[in-house]
C-alpha cells in the first residue's frame, strides 16, 4: 500500500566536511545511512530517520545536520500535520498508534509557572559551603506519635523505612524495556548516590541482587519475575497499579525482546510476548489492594515498606486516601507527562492529569484527613531538573522519581522510538550489538554526576530560602508563588500569586 506519511526529518550532509568514514552507516540501526560504493559517497534515506542524533554526535567531522522535513500542508488550524499523518498511518495499518516517552503536547507545565522564594534582610540565607545542608529523607509509614515508657525509653516500634541521601530515585523501568547495561548503570549509580532505583515490572536479574539495598522491586499486574527471593531482595516493594503515560491499561513487551536473559528474569518462555493485564486480576477494589499489601508484608516479614504507585487521574486525592488507609507505606503518583517504552498514543496524550495538580490535591486531602504524616508521598512524571524537585517537595512530596532525565543522562535524545527496539544509544533495546554501546562504567558515572549536580543545586536553593534541612520545605507552600495562573489553578495548587 502506498505510504502517504511524509518523512519526518531531513538529513543534510556537508559534503565539504564528510570524509566518507562510514561511522554513520555503522551506527544507525535504522539503516538511514548507506554507502554508495560505485560513487564512493555516503547517502541517507530520510524516511527512516527518527532523529536520535547518534550519527550527529559520533560524526568525527560534524558534517551532519538533521532538520524537520520542510514540507508544508495547506494551512489549517484544525487539521494539523500530526492529525493528518496519524490518519494516513491508521488507514494504512488498521492498528492502534503506538508512541513512546512522555506526553509531548503543549499542555501547561505548572513547574514553569511557579517561582521560588529567597531570604532577604529579615532572615539570613544559609551558605551550603559553610553550613550543613541536609537533603536526607526517610520513606515509609510513620506512627502518629512516638511514645516513651516510664524509664524514658522509646516504646514505639518504627515501621521499616527506606533511607535516601538525596530525595530522588530512579523510577521504574523494566529489564526488557531497557537494556541490561542501562539497568546496571542505574543500579550502580543508585548505590553510589545512596538512593534507590526501581526494577520495573520485569523482575530482577540474579546478577543485580547485590544492589538490593538500593533497589525497589516492583509487583505489577503481570507479576513477571515475582517470587519470595525477589520480594526480599530489595529495600522496598512497589505495587504498580498505574503509570502516568498510560493510566488504565497494561503493558506489552514484544516477544522479540524476550531473549534468554530477559526470559529467565521475567520467568516466561523465550520469545513469548509479555503482556501485563490492565488491572491486577486480584485487585478489583480498595479492599483487595489492602490484601495484596498485607500479603507482600507477610512475604517480607514486615521488614520492607510497601509502595503503591498510581497514575495521576481525576479522582487521585480520594484514591490516595484509600491507599493510605489500606496500609501502604508510601504512595507514588505518576503524572501524565511520565515516560514509557510504549503506549497507545491517544492514551498517552489524553488520559491523566499533571503531576503538580495531583500532588497538591493529594497532599491537601491527606492533611485534611489528618493522615498525611503517616505515609510518604513520591511524585513522578517528568521531573526535569532540580527546581522541579524543589517545587515538588514544596507542594508536599517526600521524594521524587526520575526516569526520562536519567535516560537522557545516558544518551537518550528523546526520539520517541523506544517501542521499535532499535535504540541506537543502547538503552531501549535488547539487540546485543546495540546494548554493547552503552558502557555501564561510564554511564553510571554520568548518572551519579547528574543527581549530585541536582543535589548541589537543591542545597543552594534551600540555603537561599534560609532552610538547612529539606524536611522544612516539605509542604511549605509559602515558598512558592504562581505566575500566569488563574484563581482556580492557584486554589488547587494551594499557593499565592506572585506579588501577593
Amino acid at each position: 500500500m502506498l505510504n502517504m506519511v511524509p518523512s519526518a526529518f531531513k538529513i543534510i550532509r556537508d559534503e565539504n566536511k564528510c570524509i566518507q568514514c562510514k561511522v554513520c552507516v555503522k551506527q544507525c540501526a535504522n539503516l538511514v545511512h548507506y554507502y554508495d560504493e560505485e560513487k564512493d559517497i555516503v547517502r541517507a534515506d530520510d524516511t527512516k530517520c527518527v532523529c536520535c542524533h547518534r550519527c550527529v554526535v559520533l560524526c568525527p567531522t560534524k558534517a551532519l545536520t538533521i532538520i524537520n522535513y520542510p514540507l508544508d500542508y495547506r494551512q489549517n488550524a484544525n487539521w494539523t500535520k500530526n492529525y493528518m499523518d496519524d490518519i494516513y498511518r491508521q488507514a494504512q495499518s488498521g492498528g492502534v498508534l503506538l508512541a513512546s516517552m512522555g506526553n509531548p503536547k503543549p499542555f501547561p507545565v505548572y513547574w514553569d509557572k511557579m517561582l521560588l522564594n529567597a531570604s532577604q534582610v529579615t532572615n539570613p540565607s544559609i551558605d551550603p559551603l559553610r553550613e550543613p545542608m541536609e537533603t536526607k529523607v526517610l520513606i515509609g509509614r510513620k506512627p502518629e506519635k512516638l511514645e516513651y515508657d516510664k524509664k524514658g525509653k522509646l516504646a514505639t516500634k518504627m515501621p521499616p523505612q527506606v533511607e535516601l541521601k538525596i530525595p530522588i530515585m530512579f523510577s521504574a523501568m523494566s529489564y526488557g524495556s531497557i537494556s541490561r547495561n542501562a539497568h546496571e548503570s542505574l543500579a550502580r549509580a543508585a548505590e553510589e548516590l545512596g538512593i534507590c532505583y526501581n526494577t520495573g515490572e520485569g523482575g530482577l536479574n540474579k546478577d543485580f541482587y547485590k544492589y538490593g539495598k538500593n533497589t525497589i522491586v516492583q509487583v505489577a499486574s503481570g507479576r513477571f519475575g515475582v517470587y519470595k527471593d525477589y520480594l526480599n531482595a530489595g529495600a522496598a516493594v512497589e505495587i504498580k497499579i498505574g503509570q502516568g503515560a498510560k493510566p488504565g491499561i497494561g503493558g506489552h513487551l514484544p516477544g522479540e525482546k524476550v531473549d534468554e536473559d530477559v526470559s529467565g528474569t521475567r520467568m516466561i518462555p523465550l520469545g513469548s510476548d509479555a503482556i501485563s493485564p490492565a488491572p491486577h486480576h486480584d485487585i478489583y477494589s480498595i479492599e483487595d489492594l489492602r490484601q495484596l499489601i498485607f500479603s507482600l508484608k507477610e512475604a517480607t516479614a514486615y521488614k520492607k515498606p510497601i509502595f503503591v504507585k498510581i497514575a495521576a487521574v481525576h479522582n487521585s486525592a480520594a484514591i490516595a486516601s484509600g491507599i493510605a488507609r489500606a496500609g501502604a507505606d508510601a504512595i507514588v503518583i505518576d503524572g501524565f507527562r511520565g515516560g514509557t517504552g510504549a503506549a497507545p498514543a491517544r492514551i498517552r496524550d489524553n488520559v491523566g492529569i499533571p503531576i503538580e495538580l495531583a500532588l497538591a490535591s493529594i497532599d491537601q486531602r491527606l492533611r485534611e484527613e489528618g493522615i498525611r504524616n503517616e505515609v510518604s508521598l513520591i511524585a513522578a512524571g517528568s521531573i526535569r531538573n532540580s527546581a522541579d524537585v524543589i517545587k515538588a517537595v514544596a507542594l508536599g512530596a517526600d521524594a521524587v522519581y526520575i526516569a526520562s532525565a536519567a535516560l537522557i543522562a545516558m544518551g537518550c535524545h528523546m526520539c520517541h522510538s523506544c517501542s521499535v527496539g532499535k535504540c541506537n544509544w543502547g538503552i531501549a533495546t535488547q539487540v546485543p550489538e546495540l546494548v554493547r554501546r552503552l558502557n555501564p562504567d561510564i554511564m553510571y558515572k554520568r548518572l551519579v554526576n547528574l543527581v549530585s549536580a541536582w543535589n548541589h543545586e537543591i542545597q543552594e536553593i534551600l540555603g537561599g530560602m534560609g532552610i538547612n534541612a529539606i524536611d522544612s520545605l516539605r509542604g511549605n507552600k509559602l515558598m512558592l508563588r504562581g505566575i500566569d495562573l488563574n484563581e482556580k489553578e492557584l486554589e488547587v495548587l494551594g499557593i499565592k500569586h506572585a506579588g501577593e
Partner: protein
Amino acid sequence: MLREGELRIPSGCSISGIINKDRKRISGENIIKSIALMHDRSNGLGGGFAAYGIYPQYKDFYALHIFYEGLSIKMKVEEFLDKHFEIESAGNIPTRVVASIINKPMIWRYFVRPRIYLENAKERQMDEDEFTSQCVIKINKDFNGAYVFSSGKNMGSFKGVGYPEDIGDFFMLDTYKAYTWTAHGRFPTNTPGWWGGAHPFTMLDWSVVHNGEISSYDTNRRFVEMFGYNCSLQTDTEVITYLFDLLVRKQKLPLEKAITIMCAPFWDDIEREYDDIKMELKSLRAVYSSALINGPFSILVGFEKGLLALNDRIKLRSLVAAQKGETVYVASEESAIRLICPDLDKVWSPKGGEPVIALYNNEEEK
C-alpha cells in the same frame, strides 16, 4: 491594610526572661528595665510580657485575658463563656494612662473553671486543659473582634501595640509579683496596629516570646493544623506555641524530646551515635520531620515547670544566658542582663539547638 492573621508579617525582636527557681516573686520593674535597654531592637509596634505566679489567690482558675473591639462582641463572648465556664471573678485589667499607648481595645480578665460536666465534653473524654484550649481556639477563630491572649493558671500575658517599656507601664506591671517574667519588644516589617498580634503568644500555661523569622513556617503550620490547631495569627510564635502544646501536652513527649524534635541534631551527628541512641534520634526525626523549626530564632518558653530558652540549631539569632544564685537570666543581649544584675555567677552563650532549661526546685503548693 490587612491586619495580623490576614497576612504574614515577619519581624525582628528583643527578648528577655528572668526565673527564680525557688519561686521567689519579684515585681515587674526589673524585666521592664531589661527590655527597655534593648529599645532599638523594637520599633514601637508591639511589646509584651508573660508573668508566672501572679494570681496565687486564683491559682486553680484559668485566667482568661481578652481584648474586645466593642461592647456587642463582649456580650456574645461572655454568653459563650457563661455557657462553658463557671466565672469566679470578672473585671477589666487595671491600666495606667501612658501618652504613647493609643487605640487601646477593651481589656478584660476572667477567672474561670470549665463546666466539664457538660455532656458532650464527658463523652469525648476531654480533660479540663483540652476543654479550655478548645474554647480559646473557638473564640479566637469564630468571634470576630474578640481575642483571648492569655489562658493559663496563675499566670498571665500582657501585651499591646507600643514599646515594651510603655506597655509594661500601661499594664502597671510594677504592681505584680511573679517568679518568672518574660518580655518581648517587636520590630515588625509591616504595621499591624493590632494588639492581638503582639507577643507573648500563649496557650494555657505555655507562653512563647520569640525573636526571628522561621523559614519552616508553612511546613510547621500545616503539620499542627492536622491536629486541630488553627493558626489564625500566621505568626511564628503562634505556631511554635502549638508545637510545644502538641508534643508535650497532647502527645506527652518529655520536654527534652520535644526540643530534640524542634532543633533536631544533624544527620551526620546522629550517624556517629551508639546504635540505640541513633535509632531513637532517627525515629524522632522521621516521625516529626515537619516539626523541625528552621531558620533563625531564639525563643523563651514559659510553662508550668519553669522556663526554657532555645536557639535555632545553627544559632542565627543572639541569645545570652546568665545565673546568679537560684535566678537564671536570658536575653538577646548581655547588657540587658548586666543592667539588672551586674554581679553574676556565670554568663554564657548557649550553642545553637542547645536549650537552657531552668526548672523550679519545688512543686507549687496546691
